[in-house]
């Protein structure tokens, strides 16, 4: 294999080492493959190869009826399945111009935010693990477990919830569930400080994350980053605020943004999002209105012909659904997902150029990709 020669000077020519990282690699978060061209330990260029988890969910959905698709969306971002459900149901509701009862919208808000915390828990754990701090991982998973318990009580499943129906919810919340959610908020609030204690002011952590993968706001927007990677670069863009869905228009919360646009700021943004999510959950759980949980949904779901794009803020970024209905059949004519991880991962190549091998894993972690969603 002929590899290009790097010129340090005539005497010191060395070859680039082509290192294949993934798909079977401990820190590529599933089945990502990154082909690195290395000069020593420095990354000269990288090629990000995806598709190892491609299951054709978009194609499958064209042959399922509108309700059956909900459980397919679970399998995309499998650490925040309920968020995917909500996004899909809202898109179909928009397509059918359905009114969703206020109680259902509140429960959706709670579930979305619980998922955000669960997803960020998994992220903070694995990200710290990538950088070598192994304890945070188990701490974060301990709290994620509490959320999974809440979900189990809510809808019987722990990972793929299938927790939404078009027009509302399949079941009302179990009695006493709201109290448990509030209890969880109290516990979680102290645990976030625990993670911060281990990482935020740790010298090694700072050295490993500060100034790594810096991207400024306009460049991040142009690259199509969304969610915490974009906000870490100082762009105050959050679909929950800009185009409110569910019951976010009635909630009070802040959108944390970073300044430097490096890995550390993305970390800080997510940690602050933990706190904001708790704030939203508290408001929504305390103010949950009485009333029906499903709106007036026709027996046969068959949206009129037309197409629409609807986006929500998933824990990873802007999760958009582009759905085309032909108005005749009971399944969508075209079902397209705009997965936030896919678009964020696109930025990886730009971010890792010039950094070291060790930073590659830190940067994959800081983008927080879920390959189930990237490949669908």
């Amino acid at each position, binding site marked *: *294999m002929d*590899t290009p020669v790097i010129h340090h000077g005539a005497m010191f020519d*060395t070859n680039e080492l082509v290192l*294949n990282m993934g798909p*079977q690699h401990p820190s590529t978060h599933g089945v990502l493959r990154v082909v690195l061209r290395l*000069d*020593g330990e*420095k990354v000269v260029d990288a090629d990000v190869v995806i598709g190892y988890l491609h299951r054709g969910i978009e194609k499958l959905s064209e042959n399922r009826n509108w309700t059956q698709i909900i459980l397919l969306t679970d399998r995309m971002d499998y650490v925040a399945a309920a968020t995917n459900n909500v996004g899909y149901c809202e898109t179909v509701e928009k397509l059918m111009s359905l009114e969703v009862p206020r109680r259902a919208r509140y429960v959706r808000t709670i579930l979305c935010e619980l998922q955000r915390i669960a997803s960020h828990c998994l992220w903070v754990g694995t990200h710290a693990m990538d950088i070598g701090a192994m304890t945070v991982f188990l701490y974060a998973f301990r709290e994620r477990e509490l959320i999974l318990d809440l979900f189990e009580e809510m809808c019987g499943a722990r990972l793929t919830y299938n927790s939404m129906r078009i027009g509302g919810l399949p079941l009302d919340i179990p009695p006493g569930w709201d109290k448990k959610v509030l209890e969880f908020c109290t516990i979680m609030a102290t645990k976030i400080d625990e993670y911060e204690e281990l990482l935020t002011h740790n010298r090694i952590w700072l050295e490993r994350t500060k100034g790594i993968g810096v991207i400024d706001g306009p460049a991040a927007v142009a690259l199509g980053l969304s969610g915490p990677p974009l906000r870490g670069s100082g762009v105050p863009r959050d679909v929950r605020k800009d185009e409110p869905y569910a019951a976010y228009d009635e909630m009070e919360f802040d959108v944390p943004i970073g300044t430097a646009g490096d890995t550390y700021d993305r970390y800080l943004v997510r940690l602050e999002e933990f706190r904001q999510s708790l704030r939203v959950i508290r408001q929504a759980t305390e103010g949950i209105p009485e009333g029906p949980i499903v709106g007036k949904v026709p027996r046969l779901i068959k949206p009129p012909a037309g197409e629409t794009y609807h986006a929500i803020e998933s824990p990873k970024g802007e999760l958009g659904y582009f759905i085309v209905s032909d108005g005749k059949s009971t399944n969508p004519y075209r079902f397209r997902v705009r997965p936030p991880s896919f678009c964020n991962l696109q930025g990886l190549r730009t971010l890792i150029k010039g950094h070291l091998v060790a930073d590659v894993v830190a940067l994959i972690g800081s983008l927080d990709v879920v390959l189930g969603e990237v490949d669908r």
Partner: protein
Amino acid sequence: MLSSYIPIAIFVAVATGFALFTLVFTSLIHPSKYNKVKLEPYECGIEPLSDARDRYSIRYYLVAMLFVIFDVETVFMFPWAVIFDKLLLFGLIEMLVFIFILVVGYYYAWQKGALEWV
């Protein structure tokens, strides 16, 4: 005097013997069902395309060279340190000159960027 080294020789023999014994012993009892895929070098699930042995970055050699310089100089200090009590001021001044030369070289290497990794 030399007799105090005999235990070391025995130890080397015993330790090597132990290592060899375990390797031979386990080679008799472990299963060996090999196939082509199992014997391939690890490349994250992709068939390795190129030989791993290639020309590496010059940095590693630079570090090795710096190490040789420093370590040899440090070894010179061992006997000096042992009889430091007897040499005292003479020994100190002599060693300060020696260390000064070392530090000048070190400073040069620093300024030349030999200690920078990236």
